[in-house]
């Protein structure tokens, strides 16, 4: 079991290295136009955001709509660190991620007692409160946002952070904690009867996801050089949620696929923003009506493929389908 996981990890790292080398070559040789370079960066950011939201919405089965708020915290805290305190880039983004994590913990402890719909609205409200608070702090630019942030995020940074995120999340999902989170999703009464402190694991998932959302925020502000409150409205949370739902709740590879597909749709329809949102909306409705488990369901692409090769080898981690 452990051997197989390690082997999977090795393959995973090898593939990601090859992908990285390929893209790095294309970017440094300027074969890709600036439009594609931008979109590749956005894809990396979206993969971080979607896979971390998946830990809350997919694996733990809670419904958070406040991811953009944590992203905003990461973006602003890291921007303040580089611009006002002149910290090195890596310290700033780590500080942003840590700040988002602390806030995620503080918000998670009270709100995660709530169930389903209430939690959705409460997290959405939290996200908006964060945004409105930032809007009212004149030191960070208020409504006009911060600009002139050093653009230190490169493709290497983005890719590296993305791989770290995916790796950490994957290991969490396959750990004891991940199993506990899955049991909370499947049936939280049964889980607590089995001695699992459900609130503890909900808060755990929420905090970890906020840390990565903060990381993505820090990378975001240092890639574009600006941080603006209007980048972190609940529409962004909806965007991220669409990616997770499209890919499949509970599937990391699904989140990657969802992020890639939706970023491409967004890029292709850049000049028709209304159509883009209509496509998103129809995608959400039709997916829920005809394929509520998304593209991948809650399975991982890797385990599906491995399952094909090793006949009878059960894929790990996932319990029966959602009811």
């Amino acid at each position, binding site marked *: 079991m452990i051997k197989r996981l390690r082997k999977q990890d090795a393959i995973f790292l090898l593939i990601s290295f090859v992908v990285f080398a390929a893209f790095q070559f294309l970017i440094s040789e300027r074969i890709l136009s600036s439009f594609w370079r931008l979109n590749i960066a956005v894809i990396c950011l979206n993969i971080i955001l979607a896979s971390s939201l998946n830990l809350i919405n997919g694996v733990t089965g809670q419904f958070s709509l406040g991811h953009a708020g944590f992203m905003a915290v990461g973006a602003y805290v890291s921007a303040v660190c580089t611009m006002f305190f002149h910290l090195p880039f890596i310290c700033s983004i780590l500080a942003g991620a840590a700040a988002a994590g602390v806030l995620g913990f503080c918000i998670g402890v009270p709100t995660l*007692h709530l169930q389903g*719909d*209430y939690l959705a609205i409460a997290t959405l409200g939290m996200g908006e409160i964060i945004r409105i608070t930032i*809007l009212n702090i004149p030191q960070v630019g208020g409504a006009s946002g911060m600009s002139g942030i050093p653009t230190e995020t490169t493709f290497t940074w983005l890719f590296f952070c993305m791989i770290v995120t995916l790796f950490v999340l994957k290991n969490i999902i396959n750990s004891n904690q991940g199993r506990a989170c899955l049991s909370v999703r499947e049936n939280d009464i049964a889980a607590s009867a089995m001695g699992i402190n459900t609130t503890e694991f909900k808060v755990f998932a929420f905090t970890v996801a906020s840390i990565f959302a903060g990381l993505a925020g820090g990378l975001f502000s240092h890639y574009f050089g600006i941080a603006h409150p209007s980048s972190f409205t609940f529409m962004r949370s909806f965007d991220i949620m669409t990616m997770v739902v499209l890919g499949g709740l509970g599937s990391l590879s699904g989140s990657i696929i969802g992020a890639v597909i939706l970023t491409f749709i967004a890029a292709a329809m850049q000049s028709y923003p209304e159509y883009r949102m209509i496509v998103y909306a129809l995608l*959400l409705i039709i997916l829920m009506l005809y394929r509520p488990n998304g593209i991948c369901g809650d399975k991982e692409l890797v385990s599906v493929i491995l399952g094909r090769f090793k006949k009878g080898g059960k894929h790990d981690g996932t319990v029966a389908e959602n009811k």
Partner: protein
Amino acid sequence: MHGRSIRYGVLHIPIEIEGIRRGAIMLGDTLFLQFIQQLINGISLGSIYALIALGYTMVYGIMKLINFAHGDVYMVGAYVGFFAATAVRLPFFPSILLAMVVTGILGMAVERLAYKPLRHSPKIAILTTAIGVSLFLEYTTMLVLTPQPRTFPPLLPETIYTVGGLIVSFQQLVILVVSIILMILLTYVVNRTKMGKAMRAVSYDPDAAQLMGINVDKTISFTFFVGSSLAGAAGVLVGIYYNSIEPLMGIMPGMKAFIAAVLGGIGIIPGAMAGGLILGIVEALISGFISSTFRDAAAFAILIIILLIKPTGLLGKNEHEKV
């Protein structure tokens, strides 16, 4: 109504309402007078929230679903009222009736097409669909009718009454009167008619209601019709009050009405009315005495506080979760 006599009456002062309101705040002799003035403004805003909140609460009571698209139904109501008043040149009452009928049918259609097939799916699926419907309505309206805000025609005379230093506009009175009439009608329908009895039965226990020969589908459709038509009426009233409508106008009032519904106790009809009024008054006081930028944050803060202290709402009874 008897708009004509008042339009040419002695009291007719055609000045923009918003200006008057600000003027009143500045000129208010005492803090107390200002307080009462904000209370009046809050009640008229709150009765609109209450009308929208009623739709949320009824739908939640019967289906346990937060209809995220409800705010957009309200926006459609405002547009229907706008076209009824400009293109067809209907006066106030026919416009509001037309808006109510159209939004009622829209609500029924949304339920039939998007929610009914998912009635037995996991909650997260229905919630996602509701967000999809909401985005679809917003951006389809934007595509068809352009994102530009439109000026709502003055369907009601902009008469201002001054009573002992307090300023009340004729529009505020109409908003209050129309809201009260609609709420009385709703209370009558729910408590005294056969359909209302069916609604209460379905919300108590859909399966048992079906066994008793109640047509659950029809009852849910009717609930959506009534709830959406109330939102449509609110849309027209807001259009008249603020003079301006745009495709995304439904997002914030929609969320605030939801907060109002939770505040009063979701699923409880008098609770939605009380919650709407309280929220409107709190918002008016905050924008009058602190800053209007914190208005939206205050609404969400109320939500989080009420969810933490008494999640069943002000008028709700505590229920223990059954295993």
